[in-house]
């Protein structure tokens, strides 16, 4: 029974990775990454520049063969996806470069034919709203425009799995908010599963149901956004209380004056570590951005 539940749990996950390992030129980028996206979840993937977010995304989609581990998309091995499964996925890379010899309109017409649920009305509306010259060659667009066109392409195909690599980088605040609205509403209603990487944490706080922090080649934190805010905090201890620091802090940083900042977690009873009760100690509840800065520092 257990085995069966586990089997179905993994089989239906739109995206799953187990033990992914990969290194470039001798430096390890992925060092045993496990990550599962349940259907309908919106996972924000964050990490510092060079943490391996793009590599992880590409490995999970089977766009290259990692040195170790395996990835599945809707239960199929990512490296050998069927055409039927590919039609359920939309992926927007950080720097799209496919079909650069076509105009915006030609590319969208061409690609649209491959998708049974292509939303032409959405294409028309969004091209206008995002002010994209549809008769311009893709190769002549700025990187930002190019990525916006690719976002339109991805959303118009009405995918069941939407994967966006740093989508916000190319968008002005207005277009970014529109994209977030699309992501939020699709995630909720049509049950689209979304994976997006970003370093704009406030975007993630709006729409993500879950977050995963990639650091040192591993997923260091993976939980729901609400839970992250309620379960973790920063404990500050003045220098003379340094010896009282709890041993199992998520991260620890000593400041020049000898005081300590630690990221700590509530225990099973919902209590902060005992050191927080000491006179002079302080617990600061953190927003996600501060939490990640504290952990990733």
């Amino acid at each position, binding site marked *: 029974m257990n085995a069966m539940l586990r089997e179905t749990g993994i089989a239906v996950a739109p995206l799953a990775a187990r033990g992914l390992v990969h290194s470039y030129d001798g430096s390890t980028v992925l060092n045993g990454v496990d990550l599962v996206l349940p259907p309908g979840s919106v996972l924000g993937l964050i990490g510092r520049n060079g943490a391996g977010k793009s590599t992880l995304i590409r490995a999970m989609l089977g766009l290259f063969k990692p040195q170790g581990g395996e990835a599945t998309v809707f239960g199929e091995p990512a490296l050998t996806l069927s055409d039927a499964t590919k039609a359920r996925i939309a992926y927007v890379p950080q720097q799209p470069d496919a079909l650069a010899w076509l105009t915006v309109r030609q590319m969208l017409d061409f690609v649209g034919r491959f998708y049974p649920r292509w939303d032409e009305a959405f294409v028309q509306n969004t091209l206008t709203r995002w002010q994209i010259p549809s008769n311009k060659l893709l190769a002549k667009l700025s990187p930002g425009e190019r990525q916006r066109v690719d976002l339109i392409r991805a959303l118009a195909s009405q995918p069941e799995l939407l994967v966006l690599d740093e989508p916000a980088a190319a968008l002005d605040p207005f277009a970014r908010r529109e994209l977030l609205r699309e992501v*939020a509403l699709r995630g*909720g209603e049509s049950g689209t599963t979304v994976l997006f990487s970003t370093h704009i944490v406030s975007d993630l706080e709006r*729409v993500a*149901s879950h977050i995963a922090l990639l650091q040192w080649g591993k997923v260091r934190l993976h939980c729901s*956004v*609400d839970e992250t*805010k309620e379960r973790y905090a920063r404990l500050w201890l003045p220098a003379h209380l340094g010896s009282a620091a709890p041993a199992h802090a998520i991260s620890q940083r000593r400041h020049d004056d000898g005081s300590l900042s630690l990221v700590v977690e509530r225990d099973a009873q919902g209590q902060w570590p005992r050191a927080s009760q000491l006179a002079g100690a302080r617990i600061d509840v953190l927003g996600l951005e501060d939490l990640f800065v504290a952990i990733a520092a």
Partner: protein
Amino acid sequence: MDASVLTIQPSASEPIYRQIVEQLRRLIAGGQLAHGELLPSVREVAGFHAINPMTVSRAYGIAESEGLVERLRGKGMAVIATRKSGESESHRLALLESQLQALARQANELELPAASVLRRLTKLLGE
């Protein structure tokens, strides 16, 4: 009620679902939301503020379990709790407790005399 009535601060340390519940409590306690008034749909709130609909559902679920609103078939969520006279002032004041504590703590950290904080606060309240 329109979705724009709610204020959402994604980067606040308080999770968004709790921000929504808090505001519903305050709006109902303060009488701005009357008995029978319909809340905006989950989709309207999620779309207007570009937030995850599951967050809105969760907030509405909590408001429902607290007896603030009820689910009407085919209509959505309607306000059932109303402002009760009598206990209302202390009850309404209790809803500001955490903000007042934060204000007091920060004023103390800044070593501001109570009188000048109160003077400023009185002015703001009068506006």
